Each structure stands twice: as C-alpha cells, then as structure tokens.
C-alpha cells in the first residue's frame, strides 16, 4: 500500500470521526445547530471523496479491482455508508442520521485499521477470485449492506422521535453487544461457540425485549420526525434490497460458472438468503399489512443485525464455508 493511498484512507477515517463529533456537538449548541450540521456533512463529503480516490488508487496499484479481502471490503463499506448518508440527507434534508452514519463509518475504519498488516498489503488473488464476476458480484452486496445499516440506524432514530426510549435502548444495546461479539471473534481467541451464542442469543433476547416493550396505540397521532425516519428507513431498504438481490443472484451465477452449482447451502450464501428473506418480509409487511412504523423500525434493526452477521459474523464467528477467504486468521 502506497503512502498516498494510506494518507487518503487516513484522511477519510479522520473525517468520519470529526464529522461524528460535530454532529454530536450540534445537538448541544442549538444556536449554531444548522451551520454545524452543514459543516459536519461537508467534512463527511470530503472524507467520501478521499476514500473514493483511495479505493481507485489501490485498484491502480494492485492492477485489479480493489475488492478482494476483508480490509478492502471494509473500505467499500465505509465508502457506501458515507455515500448512502449523503444521498439520503440530500433527498430528505435530514442530518441527524449523520452522527450514526459517521460513527458507523469510523467504527469500520477502526476495525479495518486493527486488522493484521497482511490485510492492508496488496496481495495476489487466490484462483477462485480470478474472475470478472468478482467486480459484478461483490460491490452490490457491500453497498446493500451499507444501505441496510442506514435503514436500521434510521429505525433507531424513528424509535427515538416516537419516544419509544425503552425499545430504543434495548435495540441499541443489542447492536453494541453484537458488534462486541464480532470484535472479539476477530481480534481474540475466545471460543467462537460462546461468541456465536452471544451474538445470536443476545440478538434474539434483545429484539424480543425491544418488541415487548413497544407499546403502540391504534389511532395514536404520528410524530413528524418519526414518520420521516420511517420513510428514510424504507427508502434505504428500497435501494438496498435490489442490490442484495443482484448480489445474491450474480453470486449464484458465478458459483455456477466456477463451481458448477449455483446454490450449495454454503453458510455465507445461506445467510445472505436469510437477510434477503427478512427484507422480503419487511416489504410484504410494509406494503400489505397495517403495521405501525415503530414495529417496522424494529424489523429494520433486526435486518441490520442479520446484515452484520452475514457480512462479518460468519467469518469472525467461525462459521467457515466456501467464502472463508474473507477470513484472515
């Protein structure tokens, strides 16, 4: 990795941290709030541009499409999260999603920076990845994961504005717990069975408790901001779902081309199917059923957890499978 690419990546990482703090500070300084929100978005936009150039530079240096290992996918994920936020904030005029989006991007930068140096280095591709399908199959998936993250984060904000604080706290704690399991699985030697139990068990208990603590009264007037974030969440899923579909289907086409079978119940592809099914359920619930925005928010947060499990969980929590070249241990 060249110094230039490293500098650009670091600038993008620092931008996400800076924009996070400016977003947070804007909540305490109402007088300068609009200006600070705008400034935070601009800082994030600068980070987004730097990261775009960084990824392109890495591709030029490697003389291949720069999406071949976990570290590179994390750069793409952070890029898509920042870009997705800028897109949604432009469309909806929302900025409060910014602090969660920048926190997510910063967390993934940090996670990437802690990976071993071998992940940062540009290394040759294993035979299975020497294919044009790689650039068709992987980017839609990573971008869809980022959009699902933004949808789940909007779900958290919807719960906040709808004043469902207990559900919000439980859902937020569940996400933190799941992230902790992923981090422990990646950077420590803790038995993965405990971490699997922590992730899956914690998610189940957390989300069921969040659902139980949700009290929605029929005919209750909606709150403007809560409605807005419900809409943003749906919009992000409406972008992410076709991308996930394209990613899963092109993966099936690639698998058929390379392995002779388009579906082999590999853990990672099964998990991508689980995520697809959960968002298909979300769309059916949203379009056909009269279900409250708060419940839909919980579905989108559950979707975020499934996305996290699909993207990082299966490698870091020791599920193995044909996609294990995403691992580094």
């Amino acid at each position: 990795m060249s110094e230039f690419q490293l500098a650009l990546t670091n600038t993008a990482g620092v931008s996400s941290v800076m924009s996070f703090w400016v977003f947070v500070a804007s909540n305490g300084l109402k007088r300068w709030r609009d200006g600070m929100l705008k400034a935070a978005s601009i800082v994030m936009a600068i980070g987004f541009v730097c990261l775009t150039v960084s990824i392109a530079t890495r591709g030029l240096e490697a003389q291949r499409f720069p999406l071949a290992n976990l570290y590179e996918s994390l750069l793409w994920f952070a890029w898509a999260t920042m870009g997705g936020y800028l897109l949604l904030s432009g469309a909806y005029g929302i900025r409060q999603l910014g602090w969660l989006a920048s926190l997510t991007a910063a967390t993934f930068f940090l996670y990437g920076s802690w990976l071993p140096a071998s992940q940062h280095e540009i290394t040759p591709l294993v035979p299975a990845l020497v294919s044009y399908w790689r650039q068709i199959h992987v980017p839609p998936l990573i971008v869809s994961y980022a959009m699902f993250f933004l949808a789940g984060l909007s779900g958290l904000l919807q719960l906040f504005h709808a004043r469902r604080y207990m559900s919000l706290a439980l859902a937020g704690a569940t996400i933190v717990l799941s992230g902790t399991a992923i981090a422990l699985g990646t950077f420590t030697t803790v038995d993965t069975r405990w971490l699997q139990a922590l992730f899956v068990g914690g998610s189940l208990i957390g989300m069921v408790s969040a659902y139980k603590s949700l009290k929605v009264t029929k005919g209750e007037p909606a709150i403007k901001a809560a409605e807005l974030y419900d809409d943003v969440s749906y919009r992000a899923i409406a972008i992410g779902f076709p991308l996930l579909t394209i990613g899963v289907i092109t993966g099936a086409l690639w698998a058929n081309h390379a392995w002779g079978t388009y579906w082999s119940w590999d853990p990672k592809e099964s998990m991508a199917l689980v995520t697809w099914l959960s968002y298909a359920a979300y769309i059916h619930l949203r379009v056909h059923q009269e279900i409250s925005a708060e419940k839909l928010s919980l579905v989108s947060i559950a979707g975020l957890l499934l996305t996290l499990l699909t993207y990082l969980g299966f490698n870091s929590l020791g599920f193995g499978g044909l996609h294990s070249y995403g691992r580094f241990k």
Partner: protein
Amino acid sequence: MVPETAQLKSANVKIFRGPFAIFSSVRLTVVLLTLMAATVLLGAWCPQESAVGQEKVIEQFGEEMAVNLHNWGITDLFHTPYFLILVAVLSLNMIAGSLEKVFPKLLLLKLPLPFYQAQQLEKFPFHAKLTSSAQPNTIMEAWQIQLQKRGFKTVVRGNQLAAEFGKIGRLAPTITHIGLLSLLLGVTITSWTGFSGFKPVRMGSDLTFGDSEHSKLWIGQLPTWKVHVDSTKREDYESGEAKQWYSNLSVIDKSGKTITSQEISVNNPLSYGGVDIYQSSWGMDQIVVSFNGRERALDLRPMGKLYAAFLPLDADTILIFSIKDQDKPLRLFAKRPEWGAPKLITEVPMGKSLMLGSVKMTYVKAVPVTGLQYKADPGLPIVYTAFGFIIVGVMLAAIPFRHVWIVVEQQGPGSVVYIGGRSKKAKTGFARMMTKLIAQLAAQWPEEALAEPVFHSDAITNGEAITNNEHADEHKLVTVGSTRRNDHV
C-alpha cells in the same frame, strides 16, 4: 376508505376458498418467510453433512453433540421432511398469492385513471385545499404543467385532473412472482433430470459419471462418453502462491474416438452434451521412483504449500520425499528420533538418479491430480430467466407509485382548489414533493403571501387540518394534511 382501494380490492380473484383460503394470505407469507429465514440460519450455523461431511460436524461440536444434531436432522437440514414441507407450503402460498392477488392487478393497468369529487379528495392520505384569485382554467393548466415536469402522466376532465407517476413500478410484484415461480420450475426440472458429482482424477486417467449424485425421484440419463485428463498443471505467482490451475481434457465416446478437447481452469469450464466440467481443485497425488530399476508409486500428502511421501527405512529412520509441483526437483529428507528436524539429503531433478548406499534411486515422475466438479442442469435456462425476472422485478419495486387528483371549483371571482394524493411507498417524500409543488404554484401569483416554510413543515405533519389565517390573501392554503402511515389506504 377511498374509492381506489375498493377498486384495488375488487381486482383480487378468489380461487382458494374455505379452509384453503389461508394459502393466499399475506400473513402466512410473512410467517413462512420468517420460518424459512430461521431454518436457513440454523442450517448455516451447523455445518451440513452433505456439503462438508460428518467429520466436520464432529470436529466443530464434539461426538456427543454431533450425534444429537444428526438425530434431530440439523446436520442435513435442507433434506429433512420439515424443510421440504416448508418449501412446499411457501411455494403453494406463492402460487396462491400470485394467482389471487398479484397477477389480477395487471388488469388494473388497463383501467383509465379514476376521477373523484372534491369531498372524496379529503379522504386521501395527503390532501390540501387552497383558494386563489386565479381562474380555474389557469390553475388547472399550471398544475398540469408542473406535474408533467415531475414525470406524472395527467388526464384532465372538465374541472378535474388525475395524475399518475411510476405506473411501471406496479409491475414489480407480478414480475418478481413470475421470476420466483419460474425459479421453482427450473429447480424442479433440474432435480428430476439433472445430476452432479466431484471426482479427483489423476493425470492420464478418465472421469466417468457412474457414481453421480441425483435425487431419488429421477428420470434423467447419464452420459455414455467419458473425459480423459491429458495433462494438468498449476501456475504460480512470483511469490509462490497458486494463481491458476489448468487441465487439458478430451471427451471420448463409447468407441474410444476423441470428440473434442479443451483446456479448463477455475472459472473456465468445459461444456459438452449438457454436462459442465469445472476445475475445482488441484494437487499432487503420487511420485513414482525406482529402486534398482523397480518402480514404486508413493502417495503424497499435502503439507502446507508442499506435498510429501514417507518411506520408513527401519524402526527409527524415515525417508521423506517432498515436492512442490511436477516441474520442481524432488527433495529428499531423512528423519531420525534424535534429530530435531528432518535433514535434507539432496535434490533430484526428474529423470535423474542418485545412490542411497548400495541402492540406485531414480526420480521417474510426479503425478498430479485434478479435482473435477461436473453437473448436468437441464433446468438452468429457466433458472437464469427467473433470475432476470427477479432482478427486474425488485428494481421496479424501488419506483414509487404515486397518484394526484385535483378538483378546481369557481368561488366568487376566484377559485378553490382541492388536492388529494397518495403514494404507496415513500409517503413522506411524496408529502414533501407535494408541499413544495403547492408552494411553487402559489408563488406563480405574486400577490399571494404564502410562506413556503409553513407548507413544508405542515404538509408532513399528521392528520391535522391546518388553517392558515395569517394570510388572508386571495390565494391561500386552507388545509393540508397527511395521515399516519398505517392509516393509509
């Protein structure tokens, strides 16, 4: 309920009645999708014997737990009656839902846009009422132009206007469901007539299809021809990592005649007679050495990036033969208990000999093995077509489907404008667009004193009628409302 809802519901067809009506229920769809997701998650968590073998399950969970998981059917979850029944019920639900609810909606595409009376517009999720000094015709024309600019198709009938955006998005469920049903058909055809398998084949040996895997309910045929592995090799990066594996294959018919030949590699299969043959793995299988002229084949074991064969010489001494691939020299080591590590004796290029005491050893050849995956998938064209439908369907689903209705009535010297609209998907975005549009149109008449921010914020509030008494001008907003999301039609 607004009249259009009745129209939408009237499009539904009733095929499944009585207790069978549940099969077309959307609620059942959601329950089945959730069950399917939970089941697949369980199957992803537990290694599947059919894919990785029983040893992997034992390695991961220990023998006792592995036996329990096996007895519960979790180690081969995707072949259990439970999973097959789940797939069958989901398929039935999809077929019923498609026939009763999804496909009939296509008929609605042909129907002309309905028109509504002023009072009916107040029942729409987004509604507003304005007064203006301008004449009805002028107002109607302005609305028509602005809506058309935003991609709406408009129809005007007297003092009423109906506009529609994203009609093509309405095809999304139909196309997606056609795709899913086609996928089901393709997979069924493959299951009944297709076969697959994996075989490591030594260079110079044949691949035949006698031990192929296929479903129990099978009406297909296995090929009578075979595939000969003429040669196989590995290509490395400069760093020594494997870059690609290649195999030269010949298809040979029953009479022994070569029909076709092709070099395959990972991601570049050979297709012949409906069977695809893939380069799946590669390794070194044997070395052939001769001792005083007597040839002997020694089996190789993978040892990291190398392969090694072991030949005990006596109770304490082991001769180790190590190679990287067939082009590299053979390295000879000896191992004795008192030595910390094996000692390198010498390197022998292929075809060369050396003396081991009184024994003349010759390195004759190395035999690589190529891992060939094969399959016949007659349903594949249908599956690929289904993939195309699904991708198009879900992409169309992202297009919001929006309706706007306007009624303009003469009121004294001016007009009163009734606005109603709905968006099935991005409702807040729709409300924002409508509010901006109202403000923009209001700005066309300079004498009007409407403040845009008032529209902007109020239009996305919920269900409450807002009276703007501050601006008692000729053209003013009287009410704007949008109802809570789950109260929508």
